[in-house]
C-alpha cells in the first residue's frame, strides 16, 4: 500500500473515531481509548517505516509549510525585497530582510503556491534567471551589510521555458553558485521540501546544510531519473529510483552531503509545524553563534573545503 493510501485509511479511521466519540450511545471511554491506541500504533508503524518514495510523497505535500510560513514563524519585522534590477520580479524566489532574535539577517527561498493561482504566479517554485538574479542581488546586499544569509530550499528545479533559456538560466545558476561559494557572511541552508537539481543547488551553497526529516534532495526528480536511465515512461520504476538515488535526509547525512537532520512531527512537518520551527530556530541560533565568531577568511576556506571534498574516486 502506498503512503497515500495508508494516509487515506488513517484519515478514515480518525473520522470514524471522532463520530463514535461524539455519540455517547455508541461507546464507552475504555473502548474509545482502545480504538485510539490502535490508530496511533498504526500511524507510528506507518511513519516509522517510510520508504524513500514515501518521503518524496511527503516532501511534495502542498500542506507543508512554505517559505512565507517559515519567515512568519522564525523572523521578526521581515520586509520582502523585490526584483533583480534587470528584468523582473520572479515570484518563484522570495527574499528579504528581518531579525532573527535581534540580529538582522537576509532570508531567501523558493516559493511554491498552494492554489492554482499562486502556482501559476510562482511557477510551482521553479525559478527563472530573474529569480536567481534577485537572490544574487540580495546576497551581495547581505555581504555589504555583513548580514548572515538563511536560505529555504523547496523547488522541483529551475523553470524549463523559452524565456528562461533566452535570459540565461544556466548562466544565472552558475553565477549564483560562484557567488555563494565566496560570500563573506555565514550562509545557513535548510532544505525544507523538494531539493531539485541545479535550481535547488543554486541557493544551497552554505556553511551549514540542514534538511528536514522528510525532505528530499537530488540531481533530478526520481521520475526524470527513471525515465532517463531506465526508459521508464510509465512511472513503474520511480519507487526504485527513489531508493537508488539516495535522496532522503538520512541518505544524504550518511553521505556527508548535509550536516544535520531536522525532525518533523509524526506524519510530516505540517502536522505540527511549531515543533520543526523550534528546532530550526535552535539550529540557526547555534550556527550563527558559532559562525559569526569565525574570521571571514576561515569562513571562506571552510566553506570551500566543505564542497571541495565531495567526490568518490580513485587513481
Amino acid at each position: 500500500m502506498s503512503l497515500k493510501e495508508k494516509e487515506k485509511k488513517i484519515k478514515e479511521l480518525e473520522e470514524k473515531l471522532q463520530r463514535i466519540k461524539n455519540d455517547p450511545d455508541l461507546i464507552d471511554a475504555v473502548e474509545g481509548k482502545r480504538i485510539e491506541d490502535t490508530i496511533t500504533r498504526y500511524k507510528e508503524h506507518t511513519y516509522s517505516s517510510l520508504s524513500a518514495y514515501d518521503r518524496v510523497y511527503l516532501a511534495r505535500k502542498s500542506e507543508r509549510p512554505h517559505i512565507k510560513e517559515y519567515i512568519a514563524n522564525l523572523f521578526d519585522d521581515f520586509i520582502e525585497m523585490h526584483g533583480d534590477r534587470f528584468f523582473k520580479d520572479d515570484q518563484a524566489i522570495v527574499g528579504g530582510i528581518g531579525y532573527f532574535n535581534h540580529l538582522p539577517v537576509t532570508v531567501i527561498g523558493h516559493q511554491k503556491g498552494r492554489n492554482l493561482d499562486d502556482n501559476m504566479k510562482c511557477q510551482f517554485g521553479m525559478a527563472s534567471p530573474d529569480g536567481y538574479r534577485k537572490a544574487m542581488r540580495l546576497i551581495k546586499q547581505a555581504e555589504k551589510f555583513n548580514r548572515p544569509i538563511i536560505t529555504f530550499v523547496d523547488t522541483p528545479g529551475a523553470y524549463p521555458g523559452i524565456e528562461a533559456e533566452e535570459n540565461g538560466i544556466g548562466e544565472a545558476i552558475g553565477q549564483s553558485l560562484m557567488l555563494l561559494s565566496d560570500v563573506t557572511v555565514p550562509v545557513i541552508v535548510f532544505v525544507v521540501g523538494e531539493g531539485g537539481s541545479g535550481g535547488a543547488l543554486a541557493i544551497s551553497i552554505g556553511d551549514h546544510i540542514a534538511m528536514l526529516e522528510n525532505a528530499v534532495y537530488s540531481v533530478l526528480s526520481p521520475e526524470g531519473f527513471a525515465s532517463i536511465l531506465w526508459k521508464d515512461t510509465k512511472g513503474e520504476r520511480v519507487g526504485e529510483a527513489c531508493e537508488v538515488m539516495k535522496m532522503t535526509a538520512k541518505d544524504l547525512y550518511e553521505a556527508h552531503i548535509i550536516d544535520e537532520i531536522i525532525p518533523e512531527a509524526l506524519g510530516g512537518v505540517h502536522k505540527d509545524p511549531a515543533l520543526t520551527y523550534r528546532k530550526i530556530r535552535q539550529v540557526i541560533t547555534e550556527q550563527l553563534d558559532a559562525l559569526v565568531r569565525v574570521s571571514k577568511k576561515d569562513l571562506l576556506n571552510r566553506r570551500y573545503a566543505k564542497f571541495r571534498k565531495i567526490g568518490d574516486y580513485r587513481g
Partner: protein
Amino acid sequence: MDKLLKERRHRLNEFKDYLGKKPASKHVEIPDGIYTKCPQCEGLVLSSHIKENMYVCPKCGRHMYISGHERLEQLFDNGKYKEYWSSMKTNDPLDFPDYDLKLEKAKKRTGMNDGVIVASGRIGHIKTVVVVMDNHFMMASMGTVAGEKITRAIEYATRKKRPLIIFSSSGGARMQEGIFSLMQMGKTCAALKRHMNAGLLYISYLTHPTTGGVTASFALLGDINIAEPGALIGFAGPRVIESTLRQKLPEGFQRSEFLVEHGFVDLIVERNKSRETLITLLHLHS
C-alpha cells in the same frame, strides 16, 4: 500536482530521447579512406578530407565531433601537451546497477577512464591549462571524476597563475552518481571563483552539445565565452521545453548564434580559426 508530475515525467522522457539519440555529430564515424555523409548537407566527402579539415564539413561548414585528444593536438604548440590525472576512476558512490558495465564499455570505445581530459602546455608560447570534455565517453556527463579533474585543473591554473580554457560538451550531470554529480557543479564554480579572484583569464569554449549541469555551472562563466558555430547550448533540452510548452520552438533556439543574440556568448569561432583566436586572446591577457 499529479498532472505536473506526469508532465515532468513525460518531459524527462523526451529529454532522455534527446540525450540518447540527438547529437548527430556523435554518431558520424569517420573510417579512413572512404566517404562520409555529412549529417547536415548530406554531401559525400572523403573521410580523410574531413579529418584534415578538423572535422568540419568542407561543403556546408558543419562542425562535427572531434575527439578530445585531436583537439588538444591541434591547439597546443607543436601538438605537445601533458595530460593530468588520466587514470582517475569513479568509485561508483551510489553502487548503481550496471554502471560499471557502462563505464567499461565507454572505456573500451574511447580508451579513456572519463570524458574529461586535463592538459597543460604552451599555446602561442603561453603556458595554459586546458580542459576538454569528450562526449564519446558517456556524453561527457559530469560525475565525481569529471568534477574532481576540472576542479584540480582550475586549482592548478590558479596556483601556477595560468590562464584556463575549458572546451565544454556535456549531457549534464551524470545521473548514475546522483547527488554527488550535482555537487560537482558547486565545487567547480567555487574553484573558478578563486581563479577569477586571482585576476586570471578563463575562456569558456562551448561546443556541441553543452546542456544541463555543465551549462548551469562553469560553461557560461568565462571572462570570454566562445562557441563553435551551430552548437546546441542550453540548460533544459529543447525537447523538454517543447513538450512542456506544447509549441514549436523558435528557429535556431539554443544554438550558438541564439546565445550571441541574447548576450551570453562573446564570439563564434570556426574550428580552423580556433588556435589563432585563442593565441590572440591569450596574448592580449598576458
